[in-house]
C-alpha cells in the first residue's frame, strides 16, 4: 500500500499552495486515473493520517476518478475502455495499446477560506 506516501505528497503540495495563496485549505480536489495505480478508498483513508497536526487537519479530500480512454487505430477515434481486463475497442473489438487518458494523478484545485 503506497497510498500513504501519495497522501503525504498531496499534503505537501497543498501546504505549498496554501503558503502561496494565503488562507487555510479546507478542501483538496484530485483527479485519479484508473491506471494511476492508486486506490481512491485507500487514499481517502490515508489522507486523514497525512493531515494530522498540519494546517490541513480537518480538510476534505475530493477525488474525481478518471476513466481510461484509448485510441482505436481502426476507427481512428478515441474510445472509452470498458474494462481494464480487456484493452480492445468497445466498438469494433480491435486490440488497442494507445492510452490517451487514465494515468492522471493530479492535484487540480483547492478550496481556501480566509
Amino acid at each position, binding site marked *: 500500500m503506497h497510498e500513504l506516501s501519495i497522501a503525504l505528497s498531496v499534503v505537501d503540495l497543498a501546504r505549498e499552495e496554501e503558503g502561496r495563496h494565503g488562507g487555510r485549505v479546507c478542501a483538496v480536489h484530485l483527479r485519479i486515473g484508473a491506471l494511476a495505480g492508486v486506490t481512491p478508498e485507500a487514499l481517502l483513508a490515508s489522507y486523514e493520517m497525512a493531515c494530522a497536526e498540519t494546517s490541513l487537519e480537518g480538510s476534505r479530500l475530493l477525488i474525481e476518478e478518471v476513466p481510461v480512454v484509448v485510441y482505436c487505430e481502426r476507427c481512428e477515434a478515441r474510445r472509452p475502455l470498458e474494462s481494464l481486463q480487456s484493452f480492445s475497442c468497445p466498438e469494433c473489438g480491435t486490440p488497442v495499446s494507445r492510452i490517451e487518458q487514465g494515468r492522471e*494523478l493530479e492535484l487540480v484545485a483547492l478550496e481556501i477560506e480566509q
Partner: protein
Amino acid sequence: MSHEPRLVEVRRNILKQNDLVARELRQRFRDAGVFVASLVSSPGAGKTTLLERTLTLLGERFRVAALVGDLATENDAARLARSGAPVRQITTGTVCHLEAAMVQRSLDGWALDHLDFLFVENVGNLVCPASYDLGESMRFVIVSVTEGEDKPLKYPTIFNTADVAVLSKIDLAAAVGFDHEAALHSIESVRPGMRTIALSARTDEGMNEYTALLEEALHASRETAASAP
C-alpha cells in the same frame, strides 16, 4: 463580506518530484552509456534467481551491476554478490516500492560510466511500483508459472507500465499444469502487442532470448545517444 471558501485552480502532478528525479537519472544513465533495466514481480516470482543468472551470463562479456530493493534483510544482495558483480541493497523499511530518489541516493560513489548494464530489482509487489518511474530504460514484469495464467488480468496497471513480460520458472510448467496459451492471452488482453519471454533461470531455457534482447537494447540506446545532438 463573504466567508465562502474560494476555489483555486492548481493543476499539479502529485508525483512531480519523483518524475523530476527519474528524468535526471535517465539523462545521467544516458550520459554514462549504461543501460538500466528494472524488474518487478510479486514476492517469490523468481526475480533474484533471474537476476543472479543474468549477472553471471552477461557478466562474461559486459560490465554489470545491480541495485536490489527489499523491505528488510540484505540476503538478496549477498546472494547476488556471489556472481562477482557489484551489488548494492536498498532497504526500504516499511515502504513497499522503490522511488527514484532511493535509486539516486544508492548510486553515490558509483562510476556509472564504467558499467554497461545496471539492473534495479524492485520490492516484491505488483501494485505500488506501477506509480513510480525509476529512470530505467526498460521495465520487466515477471510472473512465474506457479502464479496462474490470469495474474495479468488481476494487475493490468503494472503490465501497462512495463515494457516486457517474463514468464519465469518455465521448467515447472508441466508440474503445475501451466497453460501457456492462456497466459499469453491474458497478457495480450491487458497489453496488446507486449513482448513476452518464457524462461527458466535454472535450466537456462529462454535465457538466450532474454539476454539478446538486453544486448540489442544496449546497442540501440548507445546508437541513439551517439546520434543525438
